[in-house]
Each structure stands twice: as structure tokens, then as C-alpha cells.
């Protein structure tokens, strides 16, 4: 069968697209992909036929165990790992496990029953393993109790394996799916009565199971945020002033007037401009053709060389420097040593370079604000949506997709959501998908901070270390994102890499006469974790 794809959308009005006879926006008979089938019943508590045993576990009549996950999946395997932990305590059949991400709107509506959704710093599993295991264990206890009630036998006489409950004394057995509706009506056990398994008895948790998210990633069916298709969707390409601290001065919209599919130009904020069109490529091509004048501002003359010199000064400066560790007298020990060694190291600003470029889709109606995004913290995304749109949190929802990489770029810094909202405000009721170019991604990150480091060491005649002096000069993440964490001008976090055991220990040796110092030398470039 021959299909026709075409687009008759020429010269649409400035803020509205005419839906042509053969064209519906840019989504030409493409079908739509809404990956979130989360039942609305879950926000309404226990209802008839409801098989939600507790917030973490839903057992369908066919014994499928749906395990709810609050943390984000960006390739690190957290979804599978958390499901393993719940499954271990639940004693369900791993082959019948499905995972279901929750949304921050649901979490809010249920008084944060799923707790923290933030995912970063390798904390997804270690930060929630105890309470998700308790969730699995509580569900198991309720399912067993439901069977005990049905058979009128003491619950202690029941055993369970792979979701099959057995009463050996009477030779009866049933499955989780058959008792889940009854279990859902029981009072949850007191948290103190829940006894978790000894990890030495684990059969599923901590084992190298196959990941649950692989199949759609080998046939193109995994729907990343950038792949979202919604009815009447518009597409936006975006460009911010190439110099941080600069501003958008002007642009000449007449130069792109009449371009196929282009709906108009939106000033996103005082540094950023976007072009909106019925496909993203048309928006991006029009943005490339749009004459833009930037006011590059006070940092126009900053360069890699000026920043390097700024940091180099900090390697030897006596001002605005503090010592974190000062054991013995490192400078004296090094000066008196038989042999002195000195080296200077540097690290550049590092872009996170997620494979999936920054993007989100925002839809604003009179009483609802929604965002679809790849986020390491869906609650932060929803908060940014609420703040930027003015819509109360209770009328906001954020749908997190499996991320095409996170690396810290998509957690606390929700710049892309705020931009998406600012664009969508010009098109009420219509979803607008904003996608950054790779060039924009490289130029507008919250970079890993630039630094220089001078190591001075003294060795005795036998080559043993007698003193080590570490001076770091560079930018502070806290100064940019969380200045309240800096006390008396001292950002000790920036020397975390040199902390001693216990904790985040990086120095694994006992060093006589050790000094670590930090000279905070900030620049105009945004930095982040």
C-alpha cells in the first residue's frame, strides 16, 4: 500500500497553525505515543476490584506483579535493581514482575508515600533500599493474611514461594493474583512488625538478573522524552546568548517570514529566543536563518586564557584561601626534605553531553500544567513547571521518561523546563516540544567545574613521603547553585576528594604532614554537579 506524506501548512498565522486538509500540525497521521498508562484509580485509594496491595505493589488477577518505582532510570539499572529488592521481600515470581514509574503528581496527592524521587550521586538504591524492601515485605504479609483469612487457618502455617501460597497441612495452594483484591482491603502491618530478610538468603536481590528495560532499547520502541508525539504538538528550537551574562538584543523576524511550517518567534527570556514550527527541523532551520543581535555583556572578553590565569593566581595566592586538612607542618617538612617534587594539574570545564539533547514538552491549559521530560528529579521538574507557569502544584503533573543519559545535568537544574514553559505560554492548550541542538547543549551546560591543582611533596632519602601539600584553585559548585552551603567563604565540599576515612574517603594512606587547601576562584561560567 502506498502512503502519502505531505505538508500543506504554508504561512500559518503567527500564534496558531492552520490544520491543513492533509496536515495536522507536524504530526502527519503518525499515531501518538503516550507511554504513561498509570491508572487514575491509584490516586483515589482503595476501590472495588482494586488490586493495589500497597503503594509499591499491585498484583493483577493473572499474577503479574506491578512494582512501582519512584527513582529515575537513565541507564544505571536502578529500575531493575529496585524491583529486585521489592521482589525479594515480596516473594513473587521475578518472571512476572513489571515495573511502573510513578509521577510526582501522584506522589504529592498521596502525601509523598513514595518519598524522594531525586536520582543522582549513586543514591537511587542505597538511599531507598530499606523502605522499598519494607514495602515488598508488607505486601507479602497482607497477601498471606488474605489467604489465611480465606482458608480460616493461622497465617503462620502458610508458606510462599514465587507468588504461590501453600498450606501444607491441608494441601491447599493459591496464587497472589487470586488473593490480591482481598489483601488490598486489609490494614497494612505495623512497620515495627516487618522483619526483613538476611541478605545472605537473597535469591533475587543483589544477583545479576537481566535488566527489565532492555527489550524496547533494541528495537527502537523505547519512547524517550524527545520521541514524544501528542496531538496538535508544536516544535521549538532554541538559542541562548553564546556568552554567559549577555542578553538578547534584537532579532529580525521578517527574514524568516513565510517559511514552510514556521509559526513564529518567541522571546523566551532576556537571553534566549526560540522559533516554533510544525516540525522541529523546520524550527531549527528557521532559527539558523534568523538574524539575531546579542549584547554579549561584561564577559565578552573572557576566554580560556583569562580564566586559566585567574585560576593560576590561586595556586600561590595568600588571599581567599583556607586549609581544610592541616596535619603536622607540610610546608616545613617539604622544605626540609631530601627531595622535593612539584606538579601542577588542571581539569577543564566538562559538559555532561547526555546523548539525548536537553528537551521537554509542555502543555498549559486554563486549569492544568503538564510537562514530559527526561529528569533526574521529576519533583524538581514539576516544581519548576509550577513556578514558571504560576499553576499551583496540585494542578501540575510531570511525566518522566527513561533518560538518554543524565550524569547530573538533569537533576537540580531544570532550566529546560522553565524554557519550555515560557514558550508554551504563547500557545495555550497546545503541547510544545522544545529540543536543544547539540551545539546549544555544549554551549549552555552547568559544567563540571574547572580547576587547577598544585601538588608539592617532600621525600626522605629512602623515597618515603614526609610531607604533602595540595592546593586546589578553581570554581565552586556551591557558589553557583547553593551559596548557603558556604560558611565564612569556605566551601569544604570542593575538597571532598581529599577527605580522609571514614566517609567519602579518597586519600587511602596515612600521610605525615598533610595540608589540603582551597582557593575558591569563580568564573562567569555556570557549574554544577
Amino acid at each position, binding site marked *: 500500500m502506498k502512503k502519502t506524506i505531505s505538508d500543506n501548512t504554508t504561512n500559518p498565522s503567527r500564534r496558531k497553525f492552520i490544520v491543513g486538509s492533509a496536515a495536522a500540525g507536524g504530526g502527519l497521521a503518525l499515531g501518538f505515543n503516550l507511554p504513561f498508562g498509570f491508572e487514575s484509580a491509584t490516586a483515589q485509594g482503595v476501590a472495588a476490584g482494586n488490586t493495589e496491595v500497597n503503594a509499591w505493589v499491585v498484583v493483577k488477577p493473572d499474577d503479574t506483579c506491578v512494582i512501582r518505582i519512584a527513582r529515575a532510570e537513565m541507564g544505571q539499572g536502578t529500575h531493575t535493581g529496585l524491583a529486585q529488592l521489592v521482589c525479594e521481600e515480596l516473594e513473587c515470581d521475578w518472571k512476572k514482575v513489571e515495573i511502573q514509574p510513578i509521577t510526582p503528581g501522584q506522589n504529592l496527592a498521596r502525601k509523598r508515600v513514595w518519598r524522594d524521587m531525586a536520582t543522582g550521586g549513586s543514591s537511587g538504591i542505597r538511599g531507598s533500599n530499606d523502605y522499598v524492601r519494607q514495602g515488598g515485605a508488607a505486601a507479602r504479609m497482607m497477601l498471606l493474611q488474605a489467604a489465611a483469612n480465606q482458608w480460616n487457618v493461622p497465617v503462620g502455617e502458610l508458606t510462599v514461594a514465587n507468588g504461590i501460597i501453600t498450606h501444607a497441612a491441608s494441601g491447599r495452594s493459591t496464587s497472589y493474583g487470586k488473593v490480591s483484591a482481598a489483601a488490598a482491603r486489609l490494614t497494612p502491618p505495623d512497620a515495627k512488625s516487618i522483619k526483613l530478610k538476611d541478605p545472605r538468603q537473597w535469591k533475587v536481590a543483589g544477583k545479576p538478573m537481566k535488566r527489565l528495560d*532492555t527489550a524496547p532499547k533494541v528495537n527502537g520502541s523505547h519512547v524517550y522524552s*524527545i520521541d514524544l508525539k501528542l496531538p496538535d504538538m508544536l516544535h521549538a528550537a532554541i538559542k541562548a546568548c553564546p556568552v554567559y551574562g549577555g542578553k538578547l538584543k534584537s532579532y529580525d523576524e521578517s527574514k524568516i517570514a513565510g517559511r514552510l511550517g514556521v509559526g513564529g518567534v518567541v522571546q523566551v527570556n532576556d537571553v534566549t529566543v526560540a522559533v516554533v514550527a510544525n516540525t522541529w527541523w523546520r524550527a531549527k532551520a528557521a532559527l539558523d536563518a534568523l538574524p539575531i543581535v546579542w549584547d554579549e555583556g561584561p564577559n565578552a572578553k573572557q576566554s580560556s586564557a583569562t580564566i586559566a590565569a585567574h585560576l593560576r593566581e590561586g595556586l600561590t595566592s595568600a588571599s581567599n584561601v583556607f586549609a581544610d586538612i592541616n596535619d603536622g607542618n607540610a610546608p616545613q617538612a617539604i622544605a626540609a626534605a631530601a627531595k622535593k617534587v612539584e606538579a601542577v594539574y588542571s581539569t577543564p570545564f566538562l559538559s555532561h553531553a547526555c546523548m539525548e539533547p536537553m528537551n521537554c514538552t509542555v502543555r498549559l491549559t486554563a486549569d492544568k500544567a503538564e510537562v514530559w521530560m527526561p529528569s533526574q528529579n521529576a519533583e524538581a521538574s514539576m516544581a519548576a513547571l509550577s513556578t514558571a507557569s504560576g499553576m499551583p502544584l496540585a494542578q501540575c503533573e510531570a511525566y518522566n521518561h527513561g533518560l538518554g543519559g543524565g550524569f547530573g545535568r538533569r537533576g537540580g537544574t531544570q532550566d529546560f523546563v522553565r524554557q519550555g514553559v515560557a514558550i508554551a505560554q504563547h500557545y495555550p492548550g497546545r503541547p510544545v516540544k522544545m529540543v536543544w541542538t547539540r551545539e546549544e547543549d555544549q554551549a549552555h551546560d552547568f559544567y563540571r567545574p574547572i580547576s587547577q591543582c598544585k601538588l608539592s611533596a617532600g621525600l626522605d632519602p629512602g623515597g618515603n613521603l614526609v610531607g604533602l601539600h595540595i592546593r586546589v584553585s578553581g570554581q565552586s559548585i556551591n557558589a553557583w547553585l547553593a551559596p548557603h552551603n558556604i560558611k565564612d567563604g569556605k566551601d569544604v565540599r570542593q575538597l571532598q576528594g581529599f577527605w580522609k576515612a571514614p566517609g567519602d574517603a579518597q586519600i587511602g594512606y596515612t600521610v605525615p604532614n598533610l595540608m589540603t587547601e582551597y582557593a575558591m576562584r569563580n568564573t562567569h561560567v555556570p557549574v554544577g554537579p
Partner: protein
Amino acid sequence: MRLNVNGQAYEADVEPEMPLLWALREFIGLTGTKYGCGIAQCGACTVHLDGEPVRSCSLPVSAAAGKRVVTIEGLSRDSSHPVQKAWLELDVPQCGYCQSGQIMAAAALLAKNPQPTDKDIDAAMTNICRCGTYQRIRAAIHMAAGTATGRGSVIHMGAAPAGSDGPVAAVNTAAKA
């Protein structure tokens, strides 16, 4: 212009300079092929054009007219291509964003060179993976090629493959080769 994508014929009335990637994603609705860099560097947009791997972000759609385009969605009906099966077996993807392109590049390599060495794989597979799945990609290509033992590296997630000395030994063998 006439397009043939995954065996389906299309009459495409779009700008001839539009990159094939965006015709696939925004007009045909095949979003398995990814935008990563837009300048043919990262390979996330790799598709087959008459069997050759091409980077669709930098190929005008007009250049595909009259040729056979195959995307990740058309590589097999049911993820049964040997490369997809090996990818599943070894849990190759992490975030997965680059993997459509990786799989298409690997399938094109094996079509030309059914028994590639590690060197052949490294030379042909120039796609970027930000998660760093390169070792498993290489192992999965060997698995798909049936060269999983003796000729290259194998890293298994769990048990060692039958007849091998285990994953560590296999990696060591590859390192010496």
C-alpha cells in the same frame, strides 16, 4: 519523491534538503532513529541505505529517493535479528539512546564481514556511547557472528559461556590477541 522505508512505499512531498533523519522521525513517525549531534559524528542516527550504514542526520532526504531505507524498526519484525538477539542476551544497552545506531552499524558490519576480529569491530564501530557500553557491544557482535570464543573478547553478565575458562580468562585472551 518516492521513498521506500522498511519495505513501505511513501510519496514524500517535503523539502528535498530536509535530512532523512527528520523525515523519518517527524513525517513517517519512526522515532527509533535518534538525533544526537546533527553533524554525522555520533552515529545515533545510523540507518541502512541500500544496505550501507549512513548517518541520516546529514543525508538529505532527496538522496534517499528511490533507494531502500531500513531503520531499527525494520531490522526485524520481532527483535529476532542476530544482532538484536545478542544485544538482548548480553544486556548491552544502558540508557539506550545510542543503541539503535549501534545495532544498525553492527548489522551492516556483519552483512559485509560475517566473522569480524576485534580490530575489524573497532574500525567499523565509530558510534559514540556516552554510558560506555563499548565492551559489551564488541562482545555482542562476536556473539552474533558466532565468534564468541577463540577469536575475540566475551564479557558475560552472569555465568561464563560453556566451554570457556570464564569471563576473566576470555577477556585476558582478547587482551593478548
